[in-house]
């Protein structure tokens, strides 16, 4: 991936964020009466100033990119189908965590991500995924008293400690 492409995507996101700031100031914050007045009442001036400064810096960076930079400069990072697979499997995990629950879903996540990272031995990876999932559950559920999502099957570790 070209560094410039990543940079322009990031700048686009920044400008989107700035657009949202001004949209919220002109709608919700104006309705609440916190978009003008003195320093106490005006909660919009500070984020608006930051947004303007961001726009100025983005302008400077675009200027630098056009006039002083090699357009084909490569990033240290390259994106591949592995990244898409990792992102999809993690999104799948987050989307189903509340429904399926930690104990059924987590070994699957660990198994799939290990394979994405290039692990070859599926049987060892499966055992590893189940063991790691149980160790993490033990640390959080038993030692830290965190209630992990039990899902519709209501699976949780028995209280040991």
């Amino acid at each position, binding site marked *: 991936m070209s*560094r410039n492409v*990543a*940079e322009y*995507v*990031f700048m686009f*996101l*920044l400008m989107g*964020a700035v657009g*949202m*700031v001004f949209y*919220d100031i002109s709608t*919700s*914050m104006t309705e*609440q*009466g*916190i978009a003008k007045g*003195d*320093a*106490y*009442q005006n*909660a*919009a001036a*500070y*984020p608006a100033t*930051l947004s303007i*400064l*961001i726009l100025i*810096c*983005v302008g*400077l*960076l675009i200027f*630098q990119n056009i006039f002083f930079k090699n357009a084909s400069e490569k*990033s*240290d*990072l390259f*994106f*591949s189908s*592995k*990244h898409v697979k*990792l992102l999809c499997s*993690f999104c799948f*995990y*987050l989307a189903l*965590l509340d429904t399926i629950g*930690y104990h059924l879903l*987590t070994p699957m*996540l*660990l198994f799939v991500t*290990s394979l994405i*990272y*290039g*692990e070859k031995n599926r049987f060892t990876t499966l055992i590893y995924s189940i063991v*790691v999932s149980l160790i*993490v559950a033990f640390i*959080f559920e038993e030692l*830290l*008293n*965190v209630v*992990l*999502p039990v899902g519709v099957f209501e699976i949780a570790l028995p209280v040991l400690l």
Partner: protein
Amino acid sequence: MFDPDLLYGGIALALSFKTVLLVLIGTVLGVIIGAIPGLGPLMGIILLLPVVISLTPVEGIGLLMAIFVGGSCGGAISAILLGIPGTPLAAATLLDGYPMAKKGKHSEAVGLAFTSSAFGGLIAGVFLIFFTPMIAQFANKFAPPEYASLAILGLVSIAVVSKESTVKGIVAGLLGLLLATIGTDELTDGTRFTFDTFHLLGGFHIVSICFGLFAISEVAIQLASKGARVNLDLKFNKLQFKSLVMITRHLPNLIRSSIVGAFIGALPGTGGVTSAFTAYSISKGRAKPNEKYGEGEPGGIVATESANNATCGGVMIPTLSLGIPGDASSAILMSVLLILGFFPGPQLFNSSPEIVSGIFYVYILSNIFLLGVGIFFAPLFASILRLREARLFPIVLLSCAIGTFAVQYSVFDLWAMLGFGVLGTLMRAANYPLAPVVIGVVLGPIAELNIRKSLLLSDTGFFIFIQRPISLCIIVIAVLILGWLTFDKYKKAKQ
């Protein structure tokens, strides 16, 4: 003046069995995390963040501080044994550590790295204990304009000294400040940028931001990297007591480098990498003719490791005394105190002196443990380097997910973490620094609240910041730093 009474309050808190155990665990974990290339103390602190929220302040900070100290040293193991610095902090250690290992002196090199780090940290501890209360006492005179100026100074320094472009550093800092405005406004109780979502009423949680920006982006980056763990066939002498004798031959170097590390660490935005290379240059400049720096000279390891661990103590000076974090790690330590209801700065010294002294003790304790674990467990840490990415990074991903969930039991936080992960990966691909974002998020509320309070106090608007002598001094320092560093970068670019 320094008040010795301050030191009594925290003894019981710091030396309780639970705290001592947590500091020991933190030191060991820190060394392990630091030794694995790609992780490092910041990542260690972030990964343990959800755990400390359920602990008392001294226990929690003790655990994280120990990870900070252990992680700052752990990077030296992979630098010496593999020639790959586990963390950027260990880059300077590579210069003499790796040649020493190639000469078959890897046990001595690793032992010396631990010993120097521990003593460097202890020397910085003396600075931390004596200077922090003095600065905090001086800061009692501060009003909102001074705090606002300090927040700006902290942010400017950190954004500008980032190794990437100055403008990119500033953009990252501004983004952090802007993110900090999301949620309920403290003065008006109005909501900002929540878009009618109740999930955002309190803003994005610092844990989601840190996990996403640093850990998730690292998981993505490691997926892209082709580097595999190197087979390690080096044999270790079991205990490294010899390093205690070796260090006595380098005492002036050790003391000088530790002072350099502590001083540089206390300047916001500089950090361990700068201090390690500065100490190395000074030691090299003062070397005797028979000391061949760059070819496996033990003095090189002493200089870099003592300096980078002394920096851990140094960065805590402005963090505790002024509430201005010296780097990203101390920003997260500061955010832990804030989450637990304690505000770093002079008020912390007045209201909870036992917490401050407890933090001093856990810092000292973590360095003592570092010496111990270095002597007894160096071979164990070396074996960690055999762990493969395919085993490690799925665990990192899972720890981030469950750690984020555990803070507020919110799946929304997990989606936010993923979003910040994508953002962090994109920023790294575009060569933007991430640390200023986190520091912006931590300093943002302090900066905004104090700017608005200052303007309420002022009859002359923004001139209040230059009408007050201390505030003016701070602003002048910020401008000088900005000017000097911009000029320096311009000069280097021209060369």
